[in-house]
């Protein structure tokens, strides 16, 4: 049992991406028609099951991160109610867009890191910036093996040492940086301009949530893979709080849109 499961995650991490020749046992047990040439092992060369936008922003007293609950399979909205958040430690939560299987793997990896920290029983707990740095290095290492984790992660947390909220971004290239508001996927095109206009550092949690809902409404209208069911997580000094799934209301009842084409005023377009 161990032989196959020890290679869980990425095969032969110490081979720096080159395929494994020597171990006959591995071939027998894992039964793979191995790429016998010297090709780099590629995992996620193109994402298959993908999730869409995540948006995070800091408010007065915490950070809020929101995403929808969908996982797509190419162009098909295949899974409609998936959770895309992972809590790490007592004051950090990570949400991911991109390849869902890589997110599920990284969730396992982060939870294992969490367990290793917990068994130390040393009274120390990781800061969100530390977890972001860890993830950033992990992503960079994988991308350097031409075998990326195909995700953009938004990380929200509470920095205990400086007593302030934290919001960070890590992506498949290993880019890592903190920000006041950030979005991944389609949101980086549609939501960021809205946030630039309306974000204020002294917002309350409710104002921040309303702004995010506004962004996700725009995304539901304009992103093919966007859903109207959303979920959010809030990080404050009290810890992490994950909300229930809620449905956004949307608006279609503009008079001009509902007028039958034959009755449109002359000035209106009939396309």
């Amino acid at each position, binding site marked *: *049992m161990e032989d196959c499961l020890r290679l869980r*995650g990425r*095969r032969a991490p110490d081979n720096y991406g080159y395929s494994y020749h020597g171990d006959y046992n591995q071939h027998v*047990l894992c039964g793979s*028609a191995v790429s016998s040439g010297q090709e780099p092992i590629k*995992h996620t060369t193109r994402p*298959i099951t993908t999730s869409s936008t995540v948006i995070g922003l800091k408010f007065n007293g915490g950070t809020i991160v929101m995403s929808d609950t969908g996982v797509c399979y190419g162009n*098909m909205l*295949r899974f409609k109610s998936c959770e895309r958040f992972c809590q790490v430690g007592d004051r950090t939560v990570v949400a991911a867009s991109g390849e869902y299987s890589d997110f*599920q793997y990284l969730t396992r990896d982060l939870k294992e890191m969490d367990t290793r920290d917990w068994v130390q029983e040393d009274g120390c707990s990781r800061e969100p910036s530390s977890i972001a740095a860890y993830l950033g290095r992990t992503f960079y290492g994988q991308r350097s093996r031409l075998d990326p984790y195909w995700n953009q992660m938004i990380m929200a947390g509470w920095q205990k040492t400086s007593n302030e909220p934290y919001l960070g971004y890590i992506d498949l290239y290993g880019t890592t940086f903190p920000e006041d508001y950030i979005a991944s996927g389609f949101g980086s095109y549609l939501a960021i301009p809205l946030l630039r206009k309306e974000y204020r550092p002294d917002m309350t949690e409710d104002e921040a949530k309303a702004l995010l809902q506004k962004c996700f409404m725009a995304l539901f209208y304009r992103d093919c893979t966007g859903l109207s069911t959303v979920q959010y997580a809030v990080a404050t000094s009290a810890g992490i709080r994950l909300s229930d799934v809620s449905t956004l209301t949307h608006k279609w009842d503009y008079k001009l849109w509902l007028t039958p084409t034959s009755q449109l005023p002359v000035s209106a377009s009939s396309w």
Partner: protein
Amino acid sequence: MASGTLSAPAPPFVMGVPSAACSRADEVGTGTTILAVSYKGGVVLAADTRTSAGAYVVNRASRKISKVHDKIYVCRSGSAADTQALTQFVKYYLNIHSLELGELPSVNTAATLFQSFHYDYKDMLMSGLIVAGWDGKRGGQIYSLPIGGSKIKVNVTAGGSGSVYISGLIDALYKEDMTKEEAQQLALKLLSHAMARDASSGGMVRMTTISEDGVEETTFEGDKLPTPA
């Protein structure tokens, strides 16, 4: 099975995946419709029986629902070779695990084992699975394991090339907490519709129902299906 002698064009989909992702157009695959439906007290797994290689039907009575443990079965779609090999491995490990545990394994464990293989070998495998069964901890469960290595718990799901034709029908017809008979009839109806439209699905319908009371297998012959094929 002679390969490369058929000059039919490559199918656009092999099990719902663009054929650019396939190794060869005439590889033996379970071009297929598989599905699982949960009802109050258990799960129903159903599949068609056509195995195809390009345009040729290699086996018209294949068994795509395989036993992984007493009350855990898997519906296989994708490469016949890959899914058979994976099922053998997981069956082996799950058996040992169950002996060491001293009780029946959980469906989640089986699904996670499959997921492990899917994820670690994602660049080599073409396998889309549905793991379903019954255990004492969580009752009837269905886990969708699409290509790529994710594992998603669902109440109803379909897989394989024929699944695209019945996505809407599932949305319209599925209800929670059906009776066993309702679930079986729904599964049969869904499969028949998929087989009617998908060239890579056909033959008979095999159905496996798993609950606390046990496992029952039924087969519906090709000419006795509810919708004209």
